[in-house]
Structure formats: structure tokens, C-alpha cells
């Protein structure tokens, strides 16, 4: 706080030495409230009993002088000047009843409060920095004893996981040692050959399942045999060498060699 006093002496609003402003540096102040507080302090009276009116006048004179000296004043100083000019007028005029605006006394009290509060905070700051401070007057352990942390790893796993991985592994490796069951797949090519052979030159409508009866006997083959032979039959129909029909939904799929001129859809018209 002491060092900042130097800043304030550069601006001497109520210069007592020569009664004239030598040099004005508004930048030395931390805003208009700071400037006002400084002026109030120079009156050497308690802030509570200060004459707000004379303070306002002093501030307005100061700003006036500063502006005459070609110095640009920051906007917030001018705002404060306007407010103080208004305050001054309110204080000097008789109070108007039923006015929405605050009374001059209230405004003056408000200014006093703000000045007191700012001063109080400033004093508090000074008291704070003068407290015994860590690293200056008060010390912590200079050679703290560090905590030696060893990390211990624990595994988050359950018996189920253990057994499952064991079973999976055993099974996996069994599959390597013993030849796995071959999955039977009828390729389309195979199916086509078989169907062509079975249907032969027959021109009778015969259900697909009947043709495939002996292949469908093994249950594990059923799906692949049906799927592949059906696809192959469709291909044969598309090529025009075979005819298919189904009379009701999920009914037997009938097929025959496409005869000489005999086409299923055209039987009636022929």
C-alpha cells in the first residue's frame, strides 16, 4: 500500500503547497472512486462526517482543470462527474416530494457508503498482506518426507471367466487336433447337375422334394440341398430349359422339363 502512495502524490487535487496543479495524472488512480477517496482522505476527517457536497465540488473542479490542460479524461471519470453534478444540484435544491428519483441525501449516503467500503477493502488488503505469510514468515516442512507409493495390481476376474476361457481354449484346441465335422454344402453347380440329371427329359409335373428325396433324408443336409437346388432350378427356368409352378402357398414346388411348345402359363391359350 505504501508504494501506491507515490502514485497518488503525482496528482494533487487539493494541492496545499502552492495552491496550483502542477501535473495531473489521472492514470495514477484506479478509477473515479479511487480519486474521490483520495480527495476525501485529504480532508483529514472521518468519511462518515465528510461533506459530500464539497467533495463533489472538488471533484468537478479537478476534472475541469484536467480538461483545460488538454488532457483527455477516461469516460468513467466523466460519468462520475455528471453524477456528482446531479448530486450537487439535488443537494442544493429543496427536496421535491413524490419524486421518483432518490433524494440528494440518499445519493450522498450512497456515495459515502461506497467510499467507506472501498477504503475498508483497501485496509483489509493491507492487513491481509501484513499477516504472517507462508514462505516469508511462516514455513512449512522444508524437507517433507515423501510417501513411497508402490502399485499393486489386482485382477478383476471371476471364476466364471476363468472357467469359460479354459473351456473355450480346450474346445478350440480340440478342433485342431481332431478333424472337424465337414459342413455339407451343395454348391449351385452341383445342385444344377443333380437336378438336370433327375428331371431328365420327364415332362410330368413332379415336386422338387420328390426328386430330392434321397438327398433330403439326412437332416443336416436338408437346408443346403433345398436352398441350392431351388436356386439352381430358378436358374434353369430363367434359361428356359425347365418349368416350375406352385399352386398354393407353401404347396409343393412342381417342376418338369420344358416340353416342345408346352409352356405352363400358356396351356389354356394353346
Amino acid at each position, binding site marked *: *500500500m505504501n*508504494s*501506491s502512495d507515490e502514485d497518488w502524490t503525482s496528482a494533487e487535487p487539493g494541492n496545499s503547497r502552492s495552491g496550483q496543479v502542477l501535473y495531473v495524472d489521472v492514470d495514477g488512480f*484506479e*478509477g*473515479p*472512486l*479511487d480519486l474521490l477517496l483520495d480527495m476525501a482522505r485529504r480532508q483529514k476527517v472521518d468519511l462518515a462526517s465528510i461533506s459530500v457536497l464539497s467533495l463533489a465540488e472538488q471533484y468537478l473542479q479537478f476534472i475541469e482543470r484536467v480538461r483545460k490542460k488538454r488532457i483527455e479524461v477516461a469516460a*468513467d471519470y466523466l460519468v*462520475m462527474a455528471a453524477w456528482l453534478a446531479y448530486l450537487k444540484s439535488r443537494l442544493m435544491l429543496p427536496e421535491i416530494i413524490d419524486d421518483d428519483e432518490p433524494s440528494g441525501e*440518499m445519493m450522498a*449516503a*450512497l456515495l459515502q*457508503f*461506497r467510499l*467507506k*467500503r*472501498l477504503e*475498508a*477493502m*483497501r*485496509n*483489509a*488488503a*493491507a*492487513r*491481509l*498482506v501484513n*499477516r*504472517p*505469510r*507462508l*514462505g*516469508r*514468515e*511462516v*514455513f*512449512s*516442512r*522444508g524437507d*517433507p*518426507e*515423501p*510417501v513411497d507409493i508402490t502399485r499393486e495390481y489386482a485382477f478383476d476376474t471371476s471364476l466364471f471367466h476363468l472357467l469359460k476361457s479354459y473351456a473355450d481354449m480346450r474346445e478350440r484346441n480340440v478342433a485342431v487336433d481332431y478333424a472337424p465335422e465337414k459342413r455339407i454344402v451343395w454348391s449351385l453347380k452341383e445342385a444344377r447337375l443333380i437336378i438336370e440329371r433327375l428331371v431328365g427329359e420327364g415332362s410330368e409335373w413332379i415336386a422338387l422334394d420328390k426328386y430330392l428325396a434321397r438327398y433330403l433324408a439326412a437332416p443336416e443336409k436338408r437346408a443346403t440341398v433345398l436352398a441350392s437346388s431351388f436356386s439352381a432350378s430358378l436358374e434353369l427356368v430363367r434359361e428356359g430349359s425347365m418349368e416350375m409352378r406352385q399352386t398354393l402357398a407353401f404347396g409343393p414346388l412342381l417342376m418338369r422339363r420344358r416340353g416342345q411348345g408346352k409352356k405352363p402359363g400358356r396351356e389354356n391359350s394353346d
Partner: protein
Amino acid sequence: MQEREHGAEPGTEPGNGCEAGGQEEMEHRNLRVIEALLFASDEPLCVGEMAPFLEEGVNAEQLLDQLARQYAGRGVNLVQRGERWAFRTAADLGFLLRRTEKETRSMSRAALETMAIIAYHQPVTRAEIEEIRGVASGRGTLDMLMEAGWVRMRGRRRTPGRPVTYGTTPEFLDHFSLSSLGDLPGLEELKGAGLLSSRLPPEMQIPLPFEGELADDEDPLEDDDPVLATGGEG
């Protein structure tokens, strides 16, 4: 030398009867553990950090008070810093130990004032700080105080614009040798004079520096609050 390190314990008196002796012994052990933990650390520790090393169900606060009394007149004191405790050299020996070469960079008047306002008025918004100081404060001041570790963003005021609220940190207490915010110098007088009102006018209710987690009109800062990403108010 070895005897000194494992020496007799002058505090315990044998022959007190088995039960009393056991309890006394347990208390003695707990005190030693607290002492050792706090002595080994240069940072204040909270009860929660010490509890795992103490016997279960022990009243750590009471032990800490006891230990603080034992160290009260010594060159090293056990002090409370908010929720935490630490051993610190006695403040009255400061003149002797004072390290001038390690003088902390002197803070600007603006920073000092801002810090005091935050300490006494917390939770306080930047607008309120500016209102008290009567001047717009640059971002730099608050940033500097946060960087020094003395000031933190606490939350957001539940008012239009949801301004960020500021408060002090545990390090602030430690640095200025305050056992709690209630120890702030002149707090009672300021409170009595109605000067701790951050909002106007004097007849308004006077809030105190608020130590709790959150004030009534304060929301916590969410982890994804943009202010946390930028390190300052957007």
C-alpha cells in the same frame, strides 16, 4: 542416537490398570500417527487423508485439537487451514526466519484489492468486484489471482446472465495463515459497519464471506462449463 528414536514415552504412565492403559496407549499411538503424517507433508491434510491410518472409530478432530494444544507453545505449531491441518513454524518467529530473498513478487494494488474483495465478499461476481472498486478491472487481475492459486471460480450466480462467482482457495488460507475465513482480519468490524454488502445500499442484508460449498443463489460449475475450458469468463 538410536535410543532417542525409539525412546521411552514420557507421556504414558504404566500401572494405570489394564483397560485405561490400553486406551491411553491407543490414543498415544493415534496421536503419533497424526503427528508423523502431518510432519512428513508440506501440504495441509484433511481428516479423511489421515483416517485410514488411525484406529477405527477414533475422533480425529479431538486428537487434532489435543495435538494442537501440545504444540501451542512450541517453535512449530499445528494449525488449521479450513478443513485441513498442517504443521507450520510459529508465526511469532517470523521476524527471525523471514526470508527476504524469497520475497514474493509484490502484487499490484489492483490485484491486492481484488483479492481482499473476493475474500471478504465471496461468493462474488466480477461485476460486483468492479462495483466495489468503482472501476472496470482487466481480465488480467483475476487471472493472476487464479494463477497464484488464491482465487477460484466457485459457480454461477442464479441471476440473469448467470455470472461466474469467485471465492478463495484453501491455499489462500494457508498462505495468509488463516484457520478459516472467519479469521479474516477485521471481519467482525466490517460486518458490524455493514461494509460487507456487495450490493447496495447499506440497509440491505449483509452477507458474510461464504465458506460453504454453494450459496443459495449459486449453481455449481458443471465440468463442461465453457468457462473451465477457457480458464476465464467468456
